[in-house]
């Protein structure tokens, strides 16, 4: 894993070292000086050529591309006469960057035509950062939301991944025991539900251990690796980074300072204790709920290919939960949709975890947890019934109708 991350960073580092040359043929003459070469991009200014010659030259030189701005009488027509020629499709960031430069310049020129001077234009630029404060006097900022979303998102996503990976492990283990027939021997020594619960708990412990190892080892190794390869993670200079840097420098350095402070405040504002405790409980509840379903599926089929028909109903609520989390919770963390989905047991682990950074009343968390536990107990009961019959049943086609019969055995 570490090697993979290091490799990716290393490769993007190499990529970013690639210099691009863009030739600019500006027939208007007044846009040419906005194109200043940077570390990554060199702008070649062409003069006195017509378009076709320019295209040939650029093509032969194998430059990145040619930006052509045709001669126009009015500023408004520039948009219709500007084109980028290249061998391959240019990157989005390059084109956006060029567009932004041209737009800015045209705007300035139009204002100047109306009599506004360059200094007045600069002075008119204001950036507003509305200070946020709760009724109790707690300060926050826009960054807050992003940080909250990030934490909630990470928690929700982790849970999602965990359920899928380890749920699958359980399912496969059940199928293996059926196929190798060892289940016949084991089942004379332990009750099916003991075996099922043991499997679920054991796998989850394995998963938690693995996760902890990753986190610890990952942090350690990442530091070592970046030192060895001389990759300064914070300073990867890609074209994207350039644009961000330019945007940030446009705001002035105290703005950046303020932003950093805001980030730190935002993190401090997070209900960390609540998050951690809730994460643990919802994690356990959600994982147990889903893994008992996975165990039941494993018991119902004879081989892995038959599991396909059951995969979708299991994944649907999870994917739905992630969607709801990402799209609705950001906008409206306490709105109807978000709240409802943070109570429905199949989606609640993920959605509730995403809501918690935004502050959820304890009674809501408690109620949701209770519902989750209740559902999980029911799911285990239900899965145990299917498991008990399914592990010794071979050859029966696993349809929902068949499974329903098993509940009554």
């Amino acid at each position: 894993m570490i090697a993979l991350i290091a490799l990716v960073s290393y490769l993007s580092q190499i990529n970013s070292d690639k210099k691009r040359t863009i030739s600019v043929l500006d027939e208007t003459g007044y846009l040419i000086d906005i194109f200043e070469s940077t570390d990554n991009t060199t702008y070649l200014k062409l003069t006195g050529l017509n378009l076709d010659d320019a295209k040939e030259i650029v093509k032969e030189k194998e430059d990145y591309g040619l930006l052509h701005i045709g001669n126009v009488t009015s500023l408004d027509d520039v948009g219709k006469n500007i084109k980028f020629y290249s061998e391959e499709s240019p990157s989005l960031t390059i084109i956006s960057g060029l567009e932004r430069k041209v737009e800015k310049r045209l705007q300035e020129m139009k204002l100047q035509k109306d009599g506004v001077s360059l200094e007045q234009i600069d002075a008119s630029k204001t950036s507003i950062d509305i200070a946020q404060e709760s009724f109790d006097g707690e300060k926050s900022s826009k960054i807050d939301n992003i940080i909250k979303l990030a934490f909630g998102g990470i928690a929700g996503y982790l849970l999602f991944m965990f359920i899928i990976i380890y749920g699958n492990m359980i399912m496969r283990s059940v199928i293996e025991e059926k196929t190798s027939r060892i289940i016949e021997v084991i089942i004379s020594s332990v009750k099916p539900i003991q075996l099922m619960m043991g499997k679920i708990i054991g796998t989850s412990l394995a998963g938690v251990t693995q996760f902890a190892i990753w986190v610890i080892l990952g942090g350690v190794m990442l530091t070592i690796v970046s030192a060895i390869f001389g990759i300064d993670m914070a300073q990867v200079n890609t074209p994207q980074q350039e644009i961000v840097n330019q945007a940030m420098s446009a705001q002035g350095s105290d703005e950046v300072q303020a932003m950093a402070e805001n980030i730190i405040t935002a993190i401090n504002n997070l209900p960390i204790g609540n998050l951690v405790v809730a994460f643990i409980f919802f994690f356990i509840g959600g994982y147990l709920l889903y893994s008992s379903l996975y165990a039941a599926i494993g018991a119902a089929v004879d081989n892995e290919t038959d599991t396909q028909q059951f995969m979708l109903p299991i994944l649907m609520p999870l994917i739905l939960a992630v969607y709801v989390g990402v799209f609705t919770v950001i906008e409206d963390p306490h709105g109807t949709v978000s709240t409802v989905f943070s109570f429905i047991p199949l989606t609640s682990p993920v959605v509730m975890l995403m809501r918690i950074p935004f502050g959820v009343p304890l009674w809501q968390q408690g109620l949701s947890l209770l519902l989750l536990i209740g559902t999980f107990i029911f799911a285990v009961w239900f899965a145990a019934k299917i498991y008990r019959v399914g592990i010794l049943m071979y050859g029966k086609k696993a349809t929902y109708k068949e499974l329903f019969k098993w509940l009554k055995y």
Partner: protein
Amino acid sequence: MNNLLVADSVSKNFGKFKALNQVSIGVPMGSIFGLLGPNGAGKTTLIRIINQITMPDEGHVYLDGQSLKPEHIKDIGYLPEERGLYKSMKVGEQALYLAQLKGMSKSEAKSRLKYWFEKLEIGDWWNKKIQELSKGQAQKIQFIVTVLHRPKLLIFDEPFSGFDPINANLIKDEILKLRDEGATVIFSTHRMESVEELCDHIALLHSSNKILDGKLNDIKRNFKTNTFEIGLQSSKSESVLSEIKNSFEVLPATFKNLNDDIKLNIKINESTSPNDLLSFLTSKAEVHHFVEVIPTANDIFIQTVQNN
């Protein structure tokens, strides 16, 4: 005679399908009990009920006088017909694990395992993975795991399947030895020759009902038809044959013999003794073959099932 295991009017349904219908059996202590029947008769279901894998819908099962309880699993060893082990686990590790599931301590299991491994001459398999063994070898491991915890009751379902004749013999001897050491054995199979060799008692199931049970010898006696295989040599075969036919009920011969001129099965009635028949025959010809037809377990099985 004390019964170690008693099943009393046990019934089991799976949905609409009746797997067992009021089946009662009594397995005497220290006996080898044959549980027989055609495919689908209900044998495996009954065995699973005894192992507490499934619960009966009606009836009770008693082990050593007590109603079946979860603690009894350590008193039972079960070798299922469809059997297998974890493929990528090592032999020694796995055997220890399964023994511990049955309530043995790790140290005890280890020493018992070593004993059995030496006995069956598979000592160097301890660290091999199951998938590295051949089928017969894996079956040996499975047998050991079944008997390791010295249970009172052993249940073998088709124990010989997968074994070559030599190993099958080995297992058969082990089963007999276990019985001699005090275990009670329930033995389910289609191989009637092994039933002849091993079983004291049998019970025959058919379509969820018990249609026959009792001591094997008693049953055989009941199925006897007082028929004798006769092989004679005579120069006057024709006349001897017609004389015999006049005095006794003659049936076609069902045995193979090399030299005899006359080969018959003769059925005598209640009042005639075998000696009467023998003296009659010796007065007519040279008797080379005179054997009572004792029904085999195979014959009994087929006959009983067909009659039901």
